[in-house]
């Protein structure tokens, strides 16, 4: 049964098993998973310090600004930093890999639709 874009079920599994797709998957997960673990750990550390290390959190760094506010502002800074780093990474390492596979698949689908009597090319 053809899908909306004329790619068959068999094709999807072929693509999924291809080395190009494995590279793409690795590129996506290789950044997203470890970085997610890292920022969640850093955030939970902040929450736990606030709950259980009151003396440390309350140390004044300058004027009335204490460690807690500094750590909070650092959370803002790391969030901005990770967002920027991810976009640069995705632009450089992920988008091209994805485009390659997409263009190849679309070319295949076009070949299928432009051959009206040939049936789906498998």
């Amino acid at each position, binding site marked *: 049964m053809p899908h909306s874009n004329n790619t068959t079920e068999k094709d*999807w599994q072929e693509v999924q098993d291809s080395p190009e*797709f494995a590279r793409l998957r690795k590129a996506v997960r290789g950044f997203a998973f470890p970085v997610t673990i890292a920022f969640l750990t850093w955030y939970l550390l902040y929450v736990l310090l606030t709950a259980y290390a009151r003396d440390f*959190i309350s140390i004044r760094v*300058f004027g009335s*600004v204490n460690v807690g506010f500094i750590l909070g502002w650092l959370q803002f800074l790391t*969030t901005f930093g990770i967002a920027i780093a991810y976009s640069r990474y995705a632009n450089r390492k992920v988008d091209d890999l*994805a485009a390659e596979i997409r263009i190849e698949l679309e070319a295949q689908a076009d070949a299928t639709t432009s051959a009206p009597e040939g049936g789906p090319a498998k």
Partner: protein
Amino acid sequence: MSFVPQLAAGAAPSGGGHETLTIVLFGVIVALTLGITVWASRQNRTAADFYAGGRSFTGFQNGMAIGGDYMSAASFLGITGIIALYGYDGFLYSIGFLVAWLVALLLVAELMRNTGKFTMADVLSFRMRQRPVRTAASISTVVVSIFYLLAQMVGAGELVSLLLGVSSAAAKNGVIALVGLLMIIYVVFGGMKGTTWVQIIKAILLMIGTAVLTIWVLAKYGFNISALMDAAATASGKGTSFLEPGLRYGVENADATKTLISKLDFISLGLALVLGTAGLPHVLIRFYTVPDSKAARKSVNWAIGIIGLFYLMVLVLGLGAAALVGGEAITAQSKGGNTAAPQLAEALGGQGTSLGAAMLALIAAVAFATILAVVAGLALASSASVAHDLYANVIRRGKATDAQEIKVGRWAAVIIGAVSIGLAIPAQNLNVAFLVALAFAIAASANLPAILLSLFWRRFNTRGATWGIYGGLGSALILLIFSPNVSGKATSLFKTVDFAWFPLSNPGLISIPLGFIFAIVGALTSTELDKAKWAELEVRSLTGIGSEKAAKH
């Protein structure tokens, strides 16, 4: 205070004057947003226009709209209030709400855009049996949206009672009903295109309003944040402990159990905040309004920038309100602190002066725009899910026409609006940021496990999705019903009875892990595994092939 621009002394302040100004400004906001809605309604031709704004917004526009959706009454009124009353502890809300965007950016936004069409359930049901999964996703969409909605309505009621100086229940309820009515109009006529433009304009107004207040507050303290903190701590009457954790959450007292519970409650809140965003249906469907996944990424980046800047300013507003208005004056007006921001605006202009009245009216109008825009976005997400998932796909099994579907969506908006109005009325004493945190806890428990496992776990299946959604949703709601929010305390919904056995006010700490456990156990106990659909989902989500294209008008 010589730098404070004083209005001409001739403009004698009078109570009647500021009320007229307020009503005029509110009228302008309503007229503007309705105008956009009517304009957008003429451009809605297809279901993709109605639900996804034709997928033709740019990354920057959608980033602004996401910011508009996210900087709700909870963020502006709620967080300002909670910082003004409890100092440091309120700051956690800002941090959690912001860091949460990284989950959406890294794990969800682009993959959703590549695989979905109109609703959250499109992605969840992609490789599952349609009817059970869409039903579950639709129910949790509606529940999360209603919790979020009622927070906005509580904010609206408080705002108007502050402005008009009335505290009568009838007046507040009238306002809540009016907001509900407007919300229905936006959704019925404007669809996603109208709603998105309303969000963009609101985001601009809110950023300008917040920036003006921030600079004004900082100027009073010589742009010295430490001096502002000192003033806030002194005025709070709590001294340096105002700037340290423990006034609101993780309260330490002689009873070790109480201390433990209070600290666990804080951790629970922290967890709900950071994991909730990527499960909020009205945020997720925003990713469908852009042409492709790259634009979805860009829009989240813009959103993070705008929202981060906003929360940094909200900290200044909260501290400013503590220093210049004072906790007593704030709680006298609103028990939850929800009116701290407009009260700060009045204090900056000068209480009892025309400038003060003008500032109050302006900031309240901005807050009102905020509420209207967020309410419209929420109503759209939830009614779209009822119409598209529950009606078109489950009841009519995909045989409904666009016109029938949109008609059902309109009725759904009416009913959802009515339910949130009904719930908002008894919830009026609660802080709106706290209320929204409950919506976050439910979203993180019910939706996030199913979304993440659906996108990344090969073994996931129909039973996993339905168990995850119902399990997470059910445990969050049950824990909530038996929490001190609902009964047993002076601040509870039902003060006179006590059936609370769950001590935490935010259920996230227990219900989020439960949501994941239900989802995983459900998946493992079912043998269903559609390898072909999993291949299609994974290839499509990562490459963007076959994704919905932008409408070409």
